[in-house]
C-alpha cells in the first residue's frame, strides 16, 4: 500500500487551509494512501466501453424559468457574518497567493 509523502500531505492540507501537527501528517499520509489505494482498485476493471459518471442520479436538464424571486433582507444576509460594516461583510485583507 502506497503512503503519501510528507510534501503531498502538506500540499493537500495547505489547499484545504488545514493546519496539521507533525503526528497528524504521519497519520494522514497513511490514511490518504489507503483511500487512494482503495479508489485505484477500479483500474483493475476493463472500462473501455463505460462512460465516465458525471452524476449519480441519472437525471439531466433540470432547469427553472428565468424569474426573479425575493432575496433575503440585508439584515438576514449579514446576521451570520462575524464582522460586518455598512451593509458589507468584512474580512481580513485579501492577499493573493498566486
Amino acid at each position, binding site marked *: 500500500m502506497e503512503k503519501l509523502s510528507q510534501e503531498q500531505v502538506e*500540499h493537500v492540507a495547505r*489547499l484545504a*487551509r488545514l493546519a496539521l501537527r507533525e503526528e497528524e501528517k504521519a497519520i494522514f499520509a497513511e490514511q490518504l494512501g489507503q483511500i487512494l489505494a482503495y479508489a485505484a482498485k477500479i483500474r483493475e476493471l476493463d472500462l473501455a466501453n463505460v462512460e465516465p459518471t*458525471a*452524476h*449519480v*442520479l441519472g*437525471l*439531466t*436538464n*433540470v*432547469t*427553472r*424559468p*428565468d*424569474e*426573479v*424571486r*425575493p*432575496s*433575503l*433582507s*440585508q439584515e438576514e*444576509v*449579514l446576521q451570520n457574518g462575524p464582522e460586518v*460594516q*455598512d*451593509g*458589507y*461583510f*468584512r*474580512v*481580513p*485583507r*485579501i492577499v*493573493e*497567493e*498566486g
Partner: protein
Amino acid sequence: MALAGNVSKGVDLSRWEIVIGLEIHVELLTDSKVFCGCATDFGGEPNTRVCPVCLGLPGSLPVLNAKALEYAVKTGLALGCEIAPFSKFDRKNYFYPDLPKAYQISQYDLPLCRHGHLDIEVNGEKRRIGITRVHLEEETGKSLHAGTSIVDSPYTLLDYNRAGIPLVEIVTEPDLRSPEEARIFLEELKRVVEFAGVSDVKMEEGSLRCDANISVRPRGETRLGTKTEVKNMNSFRAVQRALEYEAARQVAVLESGGRIEQETRHWDEAAGVTRGMRSKEQAHDYRYFPEPDLVPIVLTPEQIEKWRQELPELPAARRERLMREYGLPPYDAEILTTSRKLADFFEEAARQFPDPKMVSNWVMGELLRLLKAEGKELDQVNVTPARLVGLLQLIRAGTISGATAKEVFEEMFRTGQEAAAIVERRGLQQISDEETIRQLVQKAIAANPEAVESYRKGKEKAIGALVGQVMRETRGKANPQLVNRLLLEALGKPGQ
C-alpha cells in the same frame, strides 16, 4: 507601434512576433441569477440581492436558469462553435472570499461550446481568430479594499449582489498577432454578443472583462515563448496599451539576455505599465470535480438548431446587407453596426425615407454627436426613427434649411417633440416665397448704395452685405439660394 512607459523605449519589435490569446468574461442578460432567483440589476444597496443559494448556506441547492443556458449556447453559436451534446458543471475550488461558498460553479472538461471562430479585419486583411471554448459559470461578488490598494488595505468589504450572475467565459486560441488586433477582436466580439441579444456588454459596469496571455518569439520560430497573463484592463483601449507595453517589456528582457517569468501581471492604467504580482510561484490547484448539486445537460440537435434559427442577423452579415440594400459605403455600414440598436434605428428610418445616405449622415453625424456629448444611450433619448424622418422630410421639402434643421434636431433630441411642431412653434419655416423675398431684396438694395456701387464696379464679394441684410431681416429664414438668385437678377452681372 506606439510604445508606453520607459522600459519599452528604444525597443525594436520588428524581429519579434507577438502571440496573444484572450480570455473574456461576459455577463448574460437574464433577469435572475444563474442558480437562484435573485435579481441581476446593476447597483442597489450591498447584499440585498442575496439568498441562501448564492450565499452558499448549508442545505441550499442551485437550480440552473434555463435562459442562462440558452444564452450561453447562443453565444457559442454566434461564434461558430460546436455545441456539446453532453455537458456538465464542475466546482472550481479556491479560498478567496469573492464567492462565499469557497468554490465557483464553472465548467471544466465538458464545456457547452468548443471550436469556434470570429472573423475580423485588420488593416484591410481578413483574419480568422479561433475560439477554443465558451462555457457557463457564475459571477463573483465585489470586493472593496480599504486603503489605497489591495496591498496596503487593512481589511476587505464584500458585496454579494453580483455573485451568481450568469457569466460566459470565452477563450480564444493564441491566434492574435498584435495588440491592435486584440483590440479589434474585442470590439467585434462585443458587437457579436450584443447583436446576439445575450448581453448588454457594458464595460463600465463590468459586464465584459478581458484578461490576456501574451508571449513573444523571434520571427520564424514555431515554438511559443514563455507567456505572462495580463489583468486589470478596463477598456479596449487599455487592452491595446497594456499589451503594447508588455510585448516591449518582454522583448527588452529577452534582448538583454534575461528570461521571462511565467506570472500574472497587473496593468496600471495611470502609470502605463504592467507590474508582476510578486506572488509566490505556485501553480493554481483548483481541484475541479463534478458539481454534485447540478445534473448534466443533454442538448438534442433539434434544440440546438432551434436556438441557431432564433439568432438575429450578426454584425458582419448586417454590414454586408446595409451596403447591398441601401447602397451605403463600407465606412457608414461599419459605424451603423457598432450596436444593434443603432443599426435598427437607421433601418427603421431608412425604410420610411427615399434617401438612405441622408439618413445615414444624420444618424452618424448629429445623432451620434449629441449622444456622445450627453453621454447617453440611444434608448435613453426621445428621438425616434419616425421623428428623424419627419425632420428630413422638412429639409427635403425646402421648409427648413440644413442649418435650421440641426437646431430643430437638438430640440427634438432634448424634448422628443415632432420636428414640424418645433418649426411651427418657433416660426422657423424657410421663406421661399419669391414675392416676399423680391421685396426684401429691393429694400436691401435701396438701403446699401455703397455695396451696390462696389458690386457693379466688379467687386463680387460686395453682394455678401446684401445677402446678409436679407437674412437679418428674416432672422435667417430666407431661402439662401433664392435670395442669391433674386439679388443677381436685380443687380445684373457685376461690372455692368
